[in-house]
């Protein structure tokens, strides 16, 4: 196998998949760092977002890319609603109880998707997209959009976290919750903002997975493990770490096909997760360990 082949068949698809994971992993890392629990419904909320975009395309007749912002906004508020209904009142209990509640929410969200949209595979656009040749690298338009959107969304998020008052409050809450509260930060508002952002990112991640593959009711659940692996690989609480982790996990999954039967793609993420917990639980970029 020559280098271009490796690039075109493994690295490029890996980076596309990795961008999708990165969007989810950023959300996971935010919840992990600010709210301090592992959110197991993350993947299924991504599925919900993907199908909301699907509804926007099929019912409202929106162009595919116009459905993305719609899905992000709707899913963001859905995530806030889920928090209000199912997580918020558990705040005073040990955090692991919320992890359990999120497992229940995962099932609930998935069954809502299955009831409304069924279990058959769907897609946003019919027909086969042809890749274009960029100096020997073959890329489809939607792959370029996926990678660029991921970069754009993450930069916007970073800008928000670094430059705005409430972005800083979110970082403060992640850094030292007690001191943030002593400083007068309203925890409720931070939680609200976090879910708004996380819900939007979930929708984006689900949308791009649906765009590059197809929409299925289990698609998000199957992303959960790679997304967590990415967040932990990058270092919990590190946005740039989650992106790096997502890209590494995506590429590793695609490259693993060279050595392993393709059924075991999902095992790659699991191996990365265990390896990191074993040798460097703080992740590549020194994140938190709960």
């Amino acid at each position: 196998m020559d280098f271009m082949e490796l690039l075109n068949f493994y690295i490029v698809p890996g980076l596309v998949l990795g961008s999708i994971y990165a969007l989810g992993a950023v959300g996971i890392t935010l919840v992990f760092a600010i709210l301090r629990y592992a959110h197991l419904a993350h993947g299924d909320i991504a599925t919900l977002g993907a199908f909301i975009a699907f509804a926007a395309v099929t019912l409202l007749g929106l162009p595919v890319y116009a459905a993305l912002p719609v899905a992000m906004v709707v899913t963001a508020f859905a995530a806030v609603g889920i928090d209000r209904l199912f997580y918020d009142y558990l705040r005073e209990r040990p955090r692991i109880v919320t992890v359990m509640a999120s497992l229940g929410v995962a099932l609930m969200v998935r069954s809502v998707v299955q009831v409304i949209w069924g279990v058959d595979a769907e897609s946003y656009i019919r027909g086969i997209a042809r890749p274009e040749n960029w100096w020997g690298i073959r890329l489809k338009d939607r792959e370029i959009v996926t990678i660029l959107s991921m970069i754009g969304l993450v930069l916007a998020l970073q800008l928000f976290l670094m430059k705005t008052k409430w972005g800083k409050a979110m970082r403060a809450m992640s850094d030292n919750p007690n001191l943030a509260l002593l400083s007068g930060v309203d925890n409720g508002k931070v939680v609200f903002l976090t879910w708004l952002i996380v819900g939007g990112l979930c929708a984006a991640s689900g949308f791009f997975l649906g765009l590059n593959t197809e929409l299925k009711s289990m698609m998000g659940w199957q992303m959960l493990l790679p997304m967590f692996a990415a967040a932990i690989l990058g270092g919990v609480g590190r946005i740039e770490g989650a992106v790096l982790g997502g890209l590494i996990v995506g590429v590793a999954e695609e490259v693993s096909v060279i050595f392993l039967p393709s059924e075991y793609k999902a095992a790659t993420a699991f191996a990365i997760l265990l390896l990191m917990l074993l040798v460097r639980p703080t992740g590549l970029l020194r994140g938190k360990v709960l």
Partner: protein
Amino acid sequence: MEWIGLLNYAVFMAIFICIYGLLALGLNIQWGFSGLFNAGIAGFFAVGAYTSAILTTPEADGRIGGFDMPVPVGWAGAMLLAAAIAWPIGKICLRFRSDYLAIASIGVAEIIRLVIKSEDWLTNSARGVTNIPRPFGDLPYAQSQLAYLALVGGVLFVAYLLVERQIAAPWGRMMRAIRDNELAARAMGKDVPFRRLEAFVFGAALMGLGGALFAHLNRAITPEAIDPMVATFLVWIMLILGGSGNNRGAILGVAVVWVIWSFSEILTDQFPPEIAIKAKYIRIFLIGLMLQLVLRFRPEGILPEPQRGVSGKKDS
């Protein structure tokens, strides 16, 4: 006659309640007494089912074994292998908060599912393992079911007694101390990760045994026999509803949830097929909702954990 049919159905349900009872006891050791979050119950269940199946079936073409061993050997093997898989996972994850174990256990269950689905030589993949010997399988249907119920009921009872004894022993006191105040327990020199590992491995072994009992009941096991998420989640809601930290509560929760689950299935099967398919997902939605309601309104479950001495305080 109608009532014989009903009776048969009741026995069938009771067998399942005993099998799920083992899973709930296993989870109670992990979660109820030790605070460990295992989201991969179905994985350990499947390992137990396949292990016992492969050990006890007669020689078969195209896959490893079978080894035609006695059924008790199969059960022991099921427990051992489930424990052996739990051990390294626990070893890696139990140094951290239980969130990491939750994620890793989802991963384990997923890998186990993949192996079962794709490793022809081991599990015969989609065709599954058949010809699993069933204890008392030669008796006529009703007697055979009753005998099997007596068997699984006996196993559950023994497991219950053993777990109860262990929980009342100093080991159980120590586990609760660790769960309720990890820092204090560490300060007293307890090897917290190792104790948790014991609980995790022990619980996983019981789940493996549950899987073995299931495989021998059905005489066959296929990858489709269990929906991993639904099975795992059912056990969770059983334990939480019944009362985590209380073994009798756990078994009561199994009975309540299993009865509701089975009757709702009978109910939805009456619907026309179009709606029946949707109804299946609505049922899953409702058990998810049930968990939320229990967590909100009765977090201690139907039978709360008994207050054992001064260390019985829950929730930090």
